[in-house]
């Protein structure tokens, strides 16, 4: 128990120094941009593939359920896929995928830098290392994760459409009537709140785990696994509270 508080204290101190004033803003922008590109471009393929299929599966499942209740019109599927993707599926699935990909990547990159004394090398030059190495990663993640989630929603909806056409559940016009029907901006707001919080949680926990590694290659492996597990759990808790408080 004491260890948890110790870690929490260490985490908060590190976050505080990660957002202290940069020496040279231009260098920080450059690094943030580089990180954003890394996180965004690197994760796009897997998020695109997974969310397209999730949209597809949702459409197929609802069509299967609706067939037994003949009162429900098939065009509702468009509305259900949209709502499901925006409110829960796109943010959550993206979060978990990103924890596996970006989280472990960040933790092992920083861990390697720590073990190979690269962080010491920055330190010796007089660089504020938490600010330079962590700040841009968190900023990039907070910017990029919402973008990825928006893309996931769009591809999920397209996936549902494709699956529906393939199975002959509805026509294109029917589906998109459903997609537009009862659209609520508040859902998008919830989605963005989730995405921003996930982006922060994921990157900050992974940075903390990587930055504070001690030991060697084995510890780097362990810390990146811990980064994935811990950030997934925390994100799901955050997810619950957002739903609980804002819906």
């Amino acid at each position, binding site marked *: 128990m004491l260890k948890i508080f110790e870690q929490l204290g260490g985490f908060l101190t590190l976050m505080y120094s990660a957002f202290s004033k940069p*020496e*040279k803003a231009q*260098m920080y922008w450059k690094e943030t941009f580089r990180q954003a590109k890394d996180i965004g471009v690197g994760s796009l393929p897997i998020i695109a593939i997974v969310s397209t299929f999730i949209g597809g599966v949702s459409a197929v499942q609802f069509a299967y359920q609706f067939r037994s209740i003949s009162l429900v019109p098939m065009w509702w599927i468009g509305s259900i896929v949209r709502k499901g993707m925006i409110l829960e599926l796109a943010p959550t699935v993206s979060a978990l995928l990103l924890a596996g990909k970006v989280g472990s990547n960040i933790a092992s990159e920083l861990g390697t830098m720590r073990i*190979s*004394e*690269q962080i*010491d*090398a920055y*330190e*010796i*030059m*007089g*660089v504020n290392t938490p600010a330079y190495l962590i700040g841009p990663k968190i900023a990039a993640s907070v910017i990029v994760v919402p973008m990825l989630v928006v893309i996931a929603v769009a591809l999920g909806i397209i996936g549902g459409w494709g699956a529906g056409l393939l199975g002959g559940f509805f026509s294109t016009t029917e589906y998109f009537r459903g997609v537009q029907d009862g659209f609520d901006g508040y859902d998008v707001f919830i989605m963005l709140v989730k995405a921003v919080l996930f982006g922060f949680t994921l990157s900050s926990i992974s940075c903390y785990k990587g930055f504070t590694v001690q030991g060697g290659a084995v510890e780097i492996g362990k810390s990146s696994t811990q980064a994935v597990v811990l950030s997934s759990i925390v994100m799901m808790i955050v997810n619950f509270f957002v739903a609980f408080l804002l819906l």
Partner: protein
Amino acid sequence: MIEIKNIKKNFGSQQVLKGISASFENGKCNLIIGKSGSGKTVTLKCMVGLFEPDEGTILYDGRNITDMDFHARKDIRREIGMLFQGTALFDSLTVEENVQFPLDMFTNQTAAEKLERVNFCLGRVNLPNTNKKYPGELSGGMKKRVGIARAIVMNPKYLFCDEPNSGLDPKTAIVIDHLIKEITLEYNMTTVINTHDMNSVMGIGDKVVFLHEGLKYWEGTNKQIMEITDGELFDFIFASDFLKDLRRNAKY
């Protein structure tokens, strides 16, 4: 000149440095020698501020860094260059970007000025035309050269090298040693080098501090070191019985 006075450092219950005092002179290669685990790296890291000593003072030309605040310490760091044992090159950056990094971060030079300085430093360590390579593509000796170029790019007054020839073949090791010595003389730097290599001691050891079990056991020049005939330092220098016999039977 850098002076350290009564430096102590513990890790948990392990006393690593038990009160070390020494001075390191300007324009000279000052060597800290000792067995593996004797505390050389910890001493160096305390000196540059990567570790906080538990006790003691560290004076950079009279300026005590142990009671400096964060900002004053940062200013001193601009005067320090360091070559790490594993070189610690930034592996996501090219050779040129590595050497240029301190210039990017701390100066307002134009791109052309920075490139000129980078090329000068890379030329000085005899590494022309490797600018666009990544550290992963370089040999051990080349990495050390890039490390030195990066350490001197800001024109430091103080240069620290942790085992500069570890992992190098004997010939390359000597070349790197002499490069460090030349640069020290050229720029009149205060250079502190950790090593356990007797070739370095004899080759460039203007001043030698021998650490043993967390204490300074001996201090002198590389000329004086050969007069030693017994004790811990003798054991360290003439590590094998074969060498010991050779030394004892030699007539001077």
